[in-house]
């Protein structure tokens, strides 16, 4: 088994085929989209492949250490940030091929006009613990 992260981007991914911003969908289209995502997660739980799914607020802060005894510095958000993560799903699957298959299904979530968004999702393998037997 191998764990993969499916990353969904607000910004920074190549343009989707059905590339209409969500605020221009009908309310029913939004509901259908949300339903699809929930059903997808529920189905993965049934197949024993679901690990986690979370969504992120679009706006956050940049934070860094500013030296001993000083409060951390915060900055942003920056309009020019190219890559903006919208959320993720973590799956635990038997193969890379299965991970690609599932990412493809998730990308078929319906958008404007009830048609699949064909959104680009980023698929990243987890770094695992080392195996016991290596030689």
């Amino acid at each position, binding site marked *: *088994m191998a*764990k993969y992260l499916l990353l969904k981007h607000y910004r920074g991914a190549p343009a989707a085929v059905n590339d209409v911003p969500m605020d221009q969908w009908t309310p029913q289209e939004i509901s259908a989209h949300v339903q699809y995502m929930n059903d997808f997660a529920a189905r*993965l*739980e*049934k*197949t*024993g*492949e*679901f*690990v*986690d799914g979370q969504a992120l607020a679009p706006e956050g802060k940049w934070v860094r250490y500013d030296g001993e005894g000083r409060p951390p510095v915060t900055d942003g958000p920056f309009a020019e940030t190219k890559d903006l993560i919208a959320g993720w799903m973590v799956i*635990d699957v*038997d193969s890379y091929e299965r991970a690609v298959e599932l990412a493809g299904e998730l990308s078929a979530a319906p958008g404007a006009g009830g048609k699949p968004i064909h959104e680009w999702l980023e698929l990243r*393998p987890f*770094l*695992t*613990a*080392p*195996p*016991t*037997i290596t*030689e």
Partner: protein
Amino acid sequence: MDEALIRSLTPSVLTVLVRRGADFAAAEDAVQDALVEAVRVWPADPPRDAKGWLVTVAWRKFLDATRADAARRRREERVEEEPASGPVPAADDTLQLYFLCAHPSLTPASAVALTLRAVGGLTTRQIAQAYLVPEATMAQRISRGKRTVSDVGLSPARAHSRAGGRFDRPGDVATVLRVLYLVFNEGYSGDVDLAAEAIRLTRQLAAAIDHPEVAGLLALMLLHHARRAARTAPDGSLVPLAEQDRGRWDTKLIAEGVEILQAALARDRLGEFQAQAAIAALHADAPTAEETDWVQIVEWYDELTRLTDSPVVRLNRAVAVGEADGPRAGLAALAELDDALPRHTAVAAYLHECDGDLATAARLYAEAAHKAPNLAERDHLTRQAARVNARLSR
């Protein structure tokens, strides 16, 4: 009361229920419930006959569950009329369960989960924690696995017709060994010690069936487990074999592994696990890394290549050739392999370093770190790159 001892009774209790007419999935649930109860009750009130107690409680749990299910009322009447079965040969029971839980129709992940639960007696929560997935996900993986194998067997009639020789077919044993190997090799560490659990299950299997490859896998596990304390530094970083403090190897486990391996090899039915164990034994036998018998190790890798024809084996062989005949020979062996193989770059880096080409080694170590499939290995390779770069700038 030792929890591992309670769990070791799992396979025989489960098979008693199945032979009395319970279907596998329901029986497995009932045995789990009984195990949980045993862990709760036995410390204060230990039974005289542990297995008898578990059978009685599991059977009651099964009947309760069956009664609660109106759709199964008809079957309940049938099973209640059935007389309690007499003693059953424990070894045969155990084998049937191992085979069922490693059935080829299961995905590797389901086979692993089902084996840990139905044979190992671990709870779904423990298995989920060990594999870092939510309990609900693991529960589904297990119940899907149970549905899959319910179709293939262990009904009383079929179980009976299977008795006698059914499980000594090498193909069957090989699937079981593959599952146990996966459990052992899983690097995760949590509350459940998967390596120790795999060893326990393989010991139990070795007691149930006389097969040189089962012995080979058990020896392999023991020989690797013996090095466990030396394999990681206090900060959790990986210590490669050559740099391990051999004084921290568990000599008792090594002696046991070597003895089991020698008995298996004497039977002259070589298999991949015996060959792998032989390599581990040669490493265990060397008082220092420099005294390793690499020539013999290369010969065992040749055997392994013949048995498995695995590219990973060929890669490891290239390392051994590099040690036995010098880095140039190792690089020549490596050149015959696909450079997309996992760890190919790391091996190339090491061999170039041995050959004195530090610039190439440093570049390849950094490249290998970038491609490493796990964190400990990545950190180790990054440190190697840094170390060689420091040598270069001196």
